[in-house]
């Protein structure tokens, strides 16, 4: 009986220690994080997501993009993240102070997206890439997200917002437009920009 009690208390303590050490203490440490202000133009970083980008995060989560794409840049000299132009500095805890849920990812079947908004600012690039990855990245194993687009039949006139498909990918007399979810996702991707200089992560 006493032995049983000791075993249960013992195993309980082991997990209580690791919970406090790994989760609660770092979380308490991070409470003091504040955004950084740029003295010259008054801009502030990081910022919470607003509007379409905020809605686009839900699309990113529901499509499970995080299973193939990470959102973190490793330090110079550890991996080739910076030399691959995935970022101009490593990402640090402060970059993620407003991220909820956090989507760091653990897999790079595709490239890192921590700064995809800085690398590919153009909306059309994202639309083409999501509609059919082979247009922008031949040989990619990324699926086509055609359900984030709608097809309309139109005559000679190109409707506003139609994505500029190359001739080889276009079928006669139709135009492709993003749905609302498609637009949200692209705004979220374009908001992925963690290039703002932070005191604790100097640009190398």
């Amino acid at each position, binding site marked *: 009986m006493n032995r049983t009690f000791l075993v249960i208390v013992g195993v309980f303590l082991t997990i209580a220690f690791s919970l406090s050490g790994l989760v609660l203490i770092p979380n308490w440490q991070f409470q003091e994080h504040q955004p950084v202000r740029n003295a010259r133009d008054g801009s502030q970083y990081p910022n919470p997501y607003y509007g379409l980008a905020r809605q686009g995060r839900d699309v990113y989560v529901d499509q499970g993009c995080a299973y193939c794409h990470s959102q973190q840049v490793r330090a110079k000299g550890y991996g*080739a993240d910076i030399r691959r132009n995935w970022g101009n500095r490593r990402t640090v805890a402060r970059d993620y102070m407003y991220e909820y849920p956090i989507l760091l990812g653990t897999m*790079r079947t595709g490239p890192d997206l921590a700064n995809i908004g800085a690398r590919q600012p153009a909306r059309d690039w994202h639309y083409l890439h999501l509609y059919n990855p082979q247009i922008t990245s031949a040989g990619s194993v990324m699926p086509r997200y055609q359900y984030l687009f709608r097809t309309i039949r139109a005559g000679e006139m190109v409707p506003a917002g139609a994505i500029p498909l190359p001739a080889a990918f276009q079928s006669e007399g139709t135009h492709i437009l993003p749905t609302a979810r498609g637009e949200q996702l692209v705004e979220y991707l374009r908001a992925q920009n963690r290039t703002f200089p932070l005191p604790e992560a100097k640009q190398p």
Partner: protein
Amino acid sequence: MTHVPEGPAESRLEQISRIVIDDSSRVPVLLWFTSSVIWLLFGSLAAMISSLKLHHPDFLGGIEWLTFGRIRPVHLDIVFFGWSCMAAIGTLLWLQARLCHVRLPWPVLLSGLAMVWNIGVVVGSVAVLAGHGSSIEYLEFPAYCAPFFAIPALGVLAANVKMYLTKRSEHTYVSQWYLLAATVWLPILYVTAMFCTYFGLVQGVSQAITNWWFGHNALGLWVTPIAVATAYYLIPKVTGRPVHSYHLSLLGFWTLAIFYNWAGTHHLTGGPLPAWTITVGVVGSMMMFIPVITVAINHHMTMRGVFSMLKTSPTLRFTVFGSFLYTVASFQGSLEALRSHQEITHFTQYTIGHAHLGLYGFFSMIMFGAMYYIFPRVTNNEWSSARLIKVHFWGSALGILSYGVGLCWAGWWQGTMMNNPSIPFLQIVEYIKPYLILRSISGAGMTIAHLAFALSVWRILSRHHFVMSGPTLFTTQRPPWREFVNEQNQREEIAQ
């Protein structure tokens, strides 16, 4: 009527009490087991769809519900919550009752909890397929699924503690410690992680630590202790030899309890966290060498001199294979935690290969071994065909070995190439494609194995009994199933 072999009075008494205990656990254990086998099939289906999509992205391309980013987490959650947890709970209920020499308490409640758990897996999987997943690995099921797992986990804990407190055996066997600890850890882990994740108790990168504190401990403190406990029971039981060293097994238990906890942050190496959190994870991972080596020594020394039994006993062959893979996958995992190793293998298929060597090669193989031992004892029936068991073993064993070796090899070079910025990214994708196809082939081998296993399970649960002819070993010759069923039907007609 169950056949009780003749023998000295005391051992006959022991056999009868064992039969009474097995009878008491029949319904709940069969429910947890049968559900787990059904989930194993669904998990394999989701696995095959995900795997095929990785090299043929247009496969089932237009269906949003089956897009890679949804079917892959559904695979993980079904094999974790559906297959692994349910198989583990079935095993632990049966094993603890046996080791405590008591009847399984509250069989109706425990059966009901199995159904609650099943509902949780169904609701959660549909939610993820419909796009309500959280993209947090191992915790994709939405918050409203939590009670379906938390309540049964607490019920199982209560039953386990009750058995332990009322035990009639004088000694405590090492397996009982593992089982008790695992059932304490699971509800704490799950409830804490769900609360922290879904109620905003932790912010920023602490969410990622919580994620991996849960994800790693769910394997290390929940399924691992149960599989180790099972191997500690089955290997001596089937070979008829005592465990090599009792002291070593105690050392193994407490070092696992203390160090595995801290290892989770190695999943975030190089990430945006304070360096000390990663260092703690690396130290915890390296210290895991102690429990792993103690278990390896104990199991190997118990097996010494009786390795020839692997030719005949299905239970032993699956269990020893799983035990061996425990050593291999754990060594690999400890080394993998080192920063220099993670620089290459983090973010690559290497991690996926390692995860499968652990959860499948080690844990699932031991669960198969346990089921081959337990099903006949709770159904009073025998396995219908040695050939089906052979198909199961070789499909699973060759499948997981080619899967693990193939993906670890591919992942190593994938990482090496990724760290060389002069190699374009798409060239790396091109390089791993053949290995992704190899993965699908290995997966197909394992899926065939699971179908053979499911067929065996369906037959042992059906009313046709093989009880008269002794246990089914790899060397057992049985009449073809169809012939046997016809013969039995005829016999029944004559009797009427």
